[in-house]
């Protein structure tokens, strides 16, 4: 008899002293012998019956400890999502409707587009990730969040910095480096101090951990909270100039995608997919391989944005090579997450969290493989300086990061406010609008980017031809953006209803009308069927 692949012994995470006592009496090799699976199962059931209340208490205490800072982060993130989306939509419209709102300086494309980028990345994305990390870390290390008020205050300072930074951009104050436009003198210091306070809360929580083992999500999240401040301070250092400034700019801009947005989001996906499905990750070894290869290879990637630029060829080639090496962590993560879900895709009908997170994980695979190919010189010579790059970045920051954050918030917020989301219909509208929006956006803009790149390479065509060929793609971009913005308004309104205490009408679970997304009578049938099977099972 062999042990089922996805049926390990249920084992609560133990405190360090407990684990040491146990390891002294149970030889580790026993765990490796499939023949003892039955023994493990019996022991596991006994543990489950005896220890569940204590574990539940630890979890509830962990959730309660992080409530304040997480809600501060999520509330601000929802506001920045709406603000950033409106800026983005307006910037998109201006690309095919250039006379729109041109009288006011703060409404010009250069400021609105930059404000969009900073609002969605440092406002929505970063704050949603910080909130999710603050909620997740106490659960992962089985300890209460330390210094929650400090973390909440840090989030407030972060928002003050953002207000000053984005406001500064709108009035014309910019540092002029992509992803680093907010003033390094009056905006960025707020983010550094605020982020540092949040980091203190997170690291002191990990230092006070009661769980012996560090789950892979801890590695991703803690690394991100170390990498990001290093990169942010490096990128904003005021002494860079000339070529060096451009190189540092893209070292920061690409690594903030990887070492900040990607690291936290992959860590979050590694938590929610197994958690909702109720089965361990397909291969934990693969997840460890994925994390460490990601940590080693990603730092070199940024220079592929400067193919053809005034930098040593060996440096660009090294970056292209590292970009191709990213296949290893990406494929490891993709296989792992996919194989965890495989055979259970029906679960996506039941859980909005799983639906968003699984789609986000697919987005990660797509954007990473696309990025590796785009780094190749043969592809880059067509796609560089075209709308392809914008489509690619939206697959990453939206189809991957934002989807995972939506999924996380659908799971976390009810556990913080103590009741279910009020409306299944609003969740369905949100999901439908944002999925349709990003699909239209990416397809239209990718096509426009390729057409633009080919036209730019054709010496027989005037520059104007490359602009005209993108027109319908840009309209598609605006349509996609409009749908996404509408989805964000639905989501923010729903989130507001949650905070106001609105609860689902009636006793029926909100997803009942479509499918039994949450627990329904169908689940009761499952239990009854299962018990009858168990009675006849050998």
């Amino acid at each position, binding site marked *: 008899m062999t042990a*089922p692949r996805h*049926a*390990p*012994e*249920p*084992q609560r*995470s133990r405190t360090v002293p407990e684990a040491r006592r146990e390891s002294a009496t149970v030889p580790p090799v026993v*765990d490796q012998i499939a023949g003892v699976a039955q023994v493990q*199962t019996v022991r*596991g*059931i006994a543990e*489950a*019956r005896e220890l*569940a209340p204590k*574990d539940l208490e630890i979890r509830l205490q962990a959730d309660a400890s992080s409530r304040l800072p997480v809600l501060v982060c999520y509330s601000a993130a929802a506001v920045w999502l709406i603000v950033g989306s409106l800026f983005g939509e307006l910037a998109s419209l201006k690309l095919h409707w250039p006379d729109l709102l041109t009288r006011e300086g703060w409404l010009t494309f250069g400021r609105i587009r930059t404000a969009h980028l900073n609002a969605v990345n440092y406002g929505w994305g970063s704050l949603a990730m910080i909130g999710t990390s603050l909620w997740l870390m106490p659960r992962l290390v089985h300890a209460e969040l330390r210094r929650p008020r400090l973390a909440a205050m840090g989030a407030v300072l972060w928002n003050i910095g953002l207000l000053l930074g984005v406001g500064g951009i709108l009035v014309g104050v910019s540092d002029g480096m992509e992803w680093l436009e907010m003033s390094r003198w009056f905006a960025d210091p707020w983010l550094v101090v605020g982020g540092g306070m949040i980091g203190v809360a997170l690291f002191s929580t990990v230092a006070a951990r009661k769980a012996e*083992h*560090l*789950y*892979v999500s801890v*590695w991703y999240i803690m690394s991100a909270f170390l990498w990001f401040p290093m990169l942010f301070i490096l990128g904003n250092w005021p002494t860079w100039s000339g070529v060096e400034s451009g*190189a*540092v700019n893209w*070292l920061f801009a690409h690594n903030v995608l990887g070492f900040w947005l990607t690291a936290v989001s992959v860590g979050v996906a590694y938590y929610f997919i197994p*958690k*909702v*499905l*109720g089965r*361990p*990750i397909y291969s934990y070894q693969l997840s*460890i391989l994925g994390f*460490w290869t990601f*940590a*080693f290879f990603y*730092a*070199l990637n940024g220079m592929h944005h400067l193919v053809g630029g005034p*930098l*040593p060829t060996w440096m660009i080639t090294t970056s292209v090579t590292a970009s191709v090496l990213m296949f290893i962590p990406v494929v490891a993560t993709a296989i792992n997450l996919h194989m965890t879900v495989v*055979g*259970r895709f029906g*679960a996506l*009908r039941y859980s909005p*969290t*799983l639906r968003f997170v699984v789609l986000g994980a697919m987005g990660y695979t797509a954007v990473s493989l696309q990025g590796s190919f785009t780094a190749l010189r043969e592809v880059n010579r067509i796609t560089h300086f075209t709308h392809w790059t914008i489509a690619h970045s939206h697959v990453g920051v939206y189809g991957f990061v934002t989807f995972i954050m939506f*999924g996380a918030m659908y799971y976390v917020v*009810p556990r913080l406010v103590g*009741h*279910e989301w009020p409306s299944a219909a609003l969740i369905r509208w949100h999901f439908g609008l944002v999925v349709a929006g990003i699909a239209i956006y990416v397809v239209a803009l990718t096509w426009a980017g390729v057409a633009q790149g080919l036209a730019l390479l054709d010496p027989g065509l005037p520059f104007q031809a490359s602009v005209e060929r993108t027109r319908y793609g840009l309209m598609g971009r605006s349509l996609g953006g409009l749908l996404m913005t509408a989805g964000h308004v639905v989501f923010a309104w729903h989130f507001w209803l949650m905070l106001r205490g609105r609860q689902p009408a009636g006793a029926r*679970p*909100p997803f009942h009308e479509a499918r*039994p*997304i*949450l627990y*329904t009578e169908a*689940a009761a049938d*499952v*239990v009854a069927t*299962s*018990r009858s099977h*168990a009675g006849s*099972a050998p």
Partner: protein
Amino acid sequence: MIPSSLAVILATLALGVFALSAFIVAWWRGHFRNLDAQARVIFEPRDLRFARPWETPAQRREREATYGALLPGRRGEWGGAA
């Protein structure tokens, strides 16, 4: 060319050394031992015994055989309030 790229080379090296140092420390402290237990640290026993309405009869039997009698899933367990 090297002087004008020195900052980015040093920064990249620093990130690499940071990752390598973290890996060595993690190895030294035994974080790569007992990976199976690490994979299960996110679950409470209760999690694994909940009946999942999307699972096939075979998957439910496997869950029950491994983790014990199934518990009825609670409202909101799959993405809502617990």
